[in-house]
């Protein structure tokens, strides 16, 4: 190794100064400091503006925990969880239909996604709530029937509207996850004698979850806020209840702040759950110690 152009180990050729032992100086990030200072000033100004503005903070504090608001946020969370459950079940079924080799199932699945993604959610909610105008009586003829006005309560209408709409979006998220799993996994599952559906359940879907969960978490957070649209059909979720209060006492901003606080709190509590789920479904692929 001592040909021309190679120096002996530990010795430097002339012209190169010895750097060993010199400390590395810390770099000063002037840009970061400047940005931080500007943001602190802006925040301080905002806080001051809100503090001096026409907001009765004692009213906010009072209404934060009144029973109507608490039952409202409970209804919000309940509806979000149930509608999301409906959406996920529908989404899985529709995604599997879409990926099947049956042209009828494929068309039905595509038509469903087209219909429910193509119309505004608020329109769908209003349709479900007012469906009694079209079908005064619903049920299975001869077995069980009931008056649509009685069946389609705000709760049922909201659950149907939000769930069916969510299913259309979730089906695409699940489909993306299924497609992302290597074709060799299907082969290996079939080779040990699994049917298509069995392979999907045991082998493909668990691996698809890794891809599905982040966007699904997004959808769930979206759903918590979308429930507020159900206020137009009298579902007593938190925004609806907040509105009812400010119609009476005119404390509009105060009650909107109360509702906003609860939405933020619920979303903040749910975010860590997503991380736990993601960790569970990334087993086998997570880097050790990560």
């Amino acid at each position, binding site marked *: 190794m001592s040909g021309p152009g190679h120096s002996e180990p530990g010795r430097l050729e002339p012209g190169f100064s010895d750097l060993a032992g010199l400390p590395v100086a810390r770099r000063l990030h002037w840009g970061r400091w400047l940005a931080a200072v500007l943001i602190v000033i802006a925040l301080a100004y905002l806080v001051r503006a809100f503090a001096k503005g026409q907001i009765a903070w004692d009213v906010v504090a009072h209404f934060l925990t009144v029973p109507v608001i608490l039952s409202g946020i409970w209804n919000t969370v309940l509806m979000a969880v149930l509608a999301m459950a409906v959406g996920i079940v529908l989404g899985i079924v529709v995604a599997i239909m879409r990926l099947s080799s049956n042209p009828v199932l494929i068309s039905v699945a595509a038509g469903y996604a087209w219909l429910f993604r193509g119309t505004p959610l608020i329109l769908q909610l209003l349709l479900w709530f007012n469906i009694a105008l079209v079908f005064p009586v619903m049920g299975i003829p001869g077995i069980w029937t009931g008056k649509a006005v009685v069946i389609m309560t705000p709760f049922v209408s909201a659950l149907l509207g939000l769930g069916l709409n969510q299913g259309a979006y979730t089906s695409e998220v699940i489909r993306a996850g299924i497609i992302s799993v*290597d074709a*060799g*996994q299907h*082969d*290996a*599952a*079939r*080779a*040990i*004698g*699994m*049917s*298509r559906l*069995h392979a999907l359940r*045991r*082998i493909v879907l*668990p*691996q698809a979850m890794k891809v599905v969960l982040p966007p699904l978490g997004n959808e769930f957070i979206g759903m918590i806020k979308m429930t507020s649209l159900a206020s137009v059909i009298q579902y007593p979720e938190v925004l609806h209840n907040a509105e009812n209060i400010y119609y009476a006492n005119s404390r509009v901003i105060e009650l909107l702040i109360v509702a906003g606080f609860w939405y933020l709190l619920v979303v903040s509590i749910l975010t860590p759950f997503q991380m736990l789920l993601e960790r569970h*479904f990334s*087993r*086998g*692929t997570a880097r*050790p110690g990560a």
Partner: protein
Amino acid sequence: MTRPMVAIRNVAKTFGTFQALDGVSMDVMPGEVTCLIGASGSGKTTLLRCVNQLNTIDSGAIWLDGELLGKAKRGDRLHRLTERAVSRQRLATGMVFQRFNLFPHMTALQNIVEGPVQVQRRPGREVRAEAMALLERVGLADKAGNYPSELSGGQQQRVAIARALAMRPKLMLFDEPTSALDPELVGEVLAVMRGLAETGMTMMVVTHELGFAREVADTVVYMDAGRIVEAGAPREVLAAPKEERTRTFLSKVLK
């Protein structure tokens, strides 16, 4: 005369306009090792996948241990079998893939146990004991709890072999089992396969390892353009090929 384990007659398969198999006929006798060699695109992998019904054949017929695969004769017509019946037929064959295809969300042991417990509905305790014995046999008893991502390529392929064996197949199919491995890991996989051949397992092996074919195979089949060009004992096909195309291929591979 004994009945062949695999009887392939006049099998053709096209993918779009590509003729992957063009009238292939061959027999694999019980306990025999048949090595399929040939350039990529010659149809050897497709033939293997057709035997396992991962691809359906366009025409011709394949019998496995006397049972017609994929179709059943009723009256004067052939009817395609249901997916469930095809899955049941697949239980008779074990398949090892070029890229291992272990289930990444399961440990080595869980990979092996999955088929017998989930598909064959055998009792978990018995299957686990058998799976541990299989891991021992492929030299990986200490890796039972490891995920595939924590294993080397050679170790993954050995787990994949154990996974296929756990189904107690009559026939083992190997699709280029060492092609995705680093050179220093090829030996350990071939050693496991050699051991398996010695136990009398019937094997069809698509391979580029001519040394393995020479030592272990009873029959070597050279394929080109979806047809069998030459088949026979290794000392004939590999050492003294009759066909010009076989000679050309061997000279390229051995160079």
